[in-house]
């Protein structure tokens, strides 16, 4: 199961492809809302998919600080990392 940051980033980008225009380039700095048009409902659906893939639960509170692809990948990495 992917737990390295780069593996998580790669898997996240694969999931994001399903939620946005295929022509849009996705980089770690891409803004989820403004550039990928991921609205609040899409974001919550995306999170559910990621939770299944990485066998984690992402608290809604933590999403308030997430704007970019990197920030979301980093959040998942932190939750997956042993405390």
């Amino acid at each position: 199961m992917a737990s390295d940051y780069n593996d998580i980033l790669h898997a996240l980008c694969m999931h994001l492809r399903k939620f946005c225009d295929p022509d849009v380039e996705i980089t770690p700095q891409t803004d989820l809302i403004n550039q990928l048009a991921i609205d609040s409902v899409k974001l919550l659906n995306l999170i559910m998919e990621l939770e299944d893939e990485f066998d984690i639960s992402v608290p809604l509170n933590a999403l308030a600080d997430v704007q970019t692809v990197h920030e979301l990948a980093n959040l998942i990495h932190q939750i997956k990392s042993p405390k």
Partner: protein
Amino acid sequence: MRLLDKLDAVAAARKALLPAGIEVFGTPIEEIYSSTEAKIDGRRILFLGTNNYLGLTFAPECLKAAHNAIDSEGTGTTGSRMANGSYIGHRALEREFAEFYHSQSCIVFTTGYQANLATISGLAGVGDVIVIDGDSHASIYDGCRLSGAEIIRFRHNDISDLEKRLHRLGDRSRSTLIIVEGIYSMLGDRAPLAEIVKIKNAYDSTLLLDEAHSLGVLGKTGQGLVEEKGLVGQIDFITGTFSKSLGSIGGFCVSNHAQLDQLRFVSRPYIFTASPTPATIASTRAALKLLRDGTELRRQLWENARQLYSRLQELGYQLGPEPSPIIAAILDTPQQALALWKGLLEKGIYVNLILPPAAPEGKSLVRCSVSAAHSVEQMAYVGEAFGALRKTLFQ
């Protein structure tokens, strides 16, 4: 960006979606004729979106009780119960609700929204976890945010997803509050409560059930889903509202946990909100008696609900998963939903329009709520209107 610019952006987005001249949200009601009819834009309109499930807003017993309370205790309490004290009616209604649910204690609140806000934020705090159904009402989400607890969603009515999330928490499941609803407000479906109770017991968690839309609607005496499933006494906390089946405004929480009463001293929404007015309390007490004895009202309500649900199903509308007094036609686009909503209003029927993100899965809803007070003829007319609009709008 200046402070108010974001509100201009919201106004522009709404204007782009909704045509000028139609007040979809907050429709002006010019005169109320009864619990099922009113005057809108100069015309007699059938109410089919008011959550007035038992039709008690004009019950003579409730009107008389409210009139008497105004005459004897005045129009308002002018402050919170902590500051201004508890009237006889506040304490009596709490006793009556506790007795109704065979519970040790009850707190009444000024609104249903406040009941969830106050209960959730009083029970859970920083370091605790709240696990909620993804389709939960906004009052539940807001209560969770106010609590400062970690908020985790599970897929709507998905027992295995709930269990998976509790399992991941390990020992923290013991400091976890699970929140579900008796009937969900958008699609009218029910929580799989027996299975949820088993899971909460297995993980030693605490369960809160919101019976806002199921109070008066389900169960022999109208307690809600808890009664229908034979689970009275097995739910830690039950919240609900007075503004649907009870025809007034307010909310409650009942529990057998003695700690419930401590919310009066720690829950900010309770401490800092003015208490319910004497008239509200009095009409609610009268309505609770009618609700408890309302077997015939529930029979009529369900007859109306099943009639409309099967008619809309026959017509080919996509509906929620089971018959219920909440019947939502699910549309793919906001434009389709708006056209159907507008068409129904032109035919003299007022329903609720629900647009993304308020509707599940990015869909749009035309949401009806059926009442025991609707006549067979009114229900038949609604079916005819939906049938005519199906032909003109969607075929």
